[in-house]
């Protein structure tokens, strides 16, 4: 096959003779001036990944030293800050990636060989195992539905769905250890789950609201929650809480979820949609104990 290069060359000359307006350069310089170099925010994914990796590495190093050398572990125990950190730590960090969808897990554990810590660790293990399995099931179901409704495998792989199971220590002092384990899907708010642990380090028991607020805890918490709801709706009239008739808040009970904040006060938590419209998200009420 031969191509008529002569005519193509002539056409190219014509193309190259298209006059370029002299204003173009100034316009481009203006655009560039409007976009000066900015240090870009690290992409979220990489950030979490590297953060987890660093955290995991540090913890592995830390745990190795503590486990290998009992005298260091004992010494660390007595350094005020480091001592408390050894009480809750990551025992497992891992990612599972299929089709570019990620399940990432930071599984914590409390230290010590007491019956309480063993039972808590068993609960955590069960929570993590159950949520990982459920997350995988949701991903599989979603994939099946996605492909069945005309999505391609390529598009599916671009979804980059993530399930994160992680924990957060909300209070850690001489008296209390409180932390929450969360399981979050990045594509749906419906699958967010929290699990709260509150431990009294002095008695080595899981604390209840009753322990902190006293026998009147239900009345105290209810009054405080009602008052805070009123304050919030008064301060911002776009907010509203469901009434008791609408299935909203009526009273707390012994099973109501809470964590302990840095100040040592219990914070009662209502999942999205339970006491207020979904857009208001999770609702938290700090109960100041006297």
């Amino acid at each position: 096959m031969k191509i008529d290069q002569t005519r193509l060359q002539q056409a190219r000359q014509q193309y190259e003779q298209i006059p370029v307006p002299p204003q173009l350069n100034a316009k481009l310089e203006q655009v560039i001036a409007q976009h000066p170099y900015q240090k870009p925010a690290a992409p979220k994914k990489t950030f979490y990944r590297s953060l987890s990796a660093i955290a995991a590495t540090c913890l592995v190093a830390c745990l190795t030293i503590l486990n290998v050398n009992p005298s260091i572990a004992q010494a660390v125990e007595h350094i005020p800050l480091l001592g408390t950190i050894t009480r809750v730590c990551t025992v497992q960090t891992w990612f599972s990636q299929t089709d570019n969808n990620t399940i990432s897990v930071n599984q914590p554990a409390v230290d010590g060989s007491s019956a309480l810590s063993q039972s808590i660790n068993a609960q955590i293990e069960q929570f993590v195992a159950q949520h990982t399995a459920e997350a995988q099931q949701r991903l599989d179901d979603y994939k099946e539905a996605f492909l069945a409704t005309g999505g391609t495998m390529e598009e599916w792989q671009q979804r980059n769905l993530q399930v994160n199971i992680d924990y957060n220590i909300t209070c850690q002092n001489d008296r209390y250890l409180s932390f929450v384990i969360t399981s979050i899907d990045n594509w749906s708010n419906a699958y967010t789950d929290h699990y709260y642990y509150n431990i009294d380090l002095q008695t080595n028991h899981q604390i209840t609201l009753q322990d902190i607020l006293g026998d009147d805890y239900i009345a105290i918490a209810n009054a405080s929650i009602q008052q805070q709801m009123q304050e919030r709706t008064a301060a911002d009239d776009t907010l509203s809480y469901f009434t008791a008739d609408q299935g909203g808040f009526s009273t707390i009970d012994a099973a109501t979820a809470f964590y302990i904040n840095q100040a040592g006060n219990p914070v009662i938590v209502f999942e999205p949609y339970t006491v207020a419209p979904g857009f208001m998200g999770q609702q938290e009420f700090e109960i100041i104990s006297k």
Partner: protein
Amino acid sequence: MQQLYQQLTAFLLADQQHFYRVAYSYCHNPENAMDIVQSAACKALEKYHTIREPQYLKTWFYRILINESLDFLRRNKKEIIAEDFLEEDHHDPLSSQADYLDLYQAILQLPPNIKTIILLHYFEDMTLRQIAEVTQINENTVKSRLYSGLKKLSLILKEDTP
């Protein structure tokens, strides 16, 4: 990342005439061509941190530029057809044996997906591999579109013609 930014701004200024001619080949109007180049540059400056390999800077930017041009055509579909209709005296530029001077015009009249390939290959000196990157289509598809374009322009000579 700063190095990439400098690379991009240098490239935008150095090759601006190329960008302008590419854009002009789609919109046939100096004002619009400058707008297309400007908004492509804008998008590139906003998104350059997503480039993983600096070596793809050129094909990446041409992709933005071509997309901007095609977007412009989509938005202004009606006007362009009307203009073309007035300017052309019902003479089909793709008819065989279009004369030398008409070849460039004939290229401009090709369907956009074929025009892009001829333009980038013969006027912007891109390899088929690079064009595949710009247009995000398979290299073999690029090749077959290129030949179908050449055929339409009657640029393929029979083996026995000297």
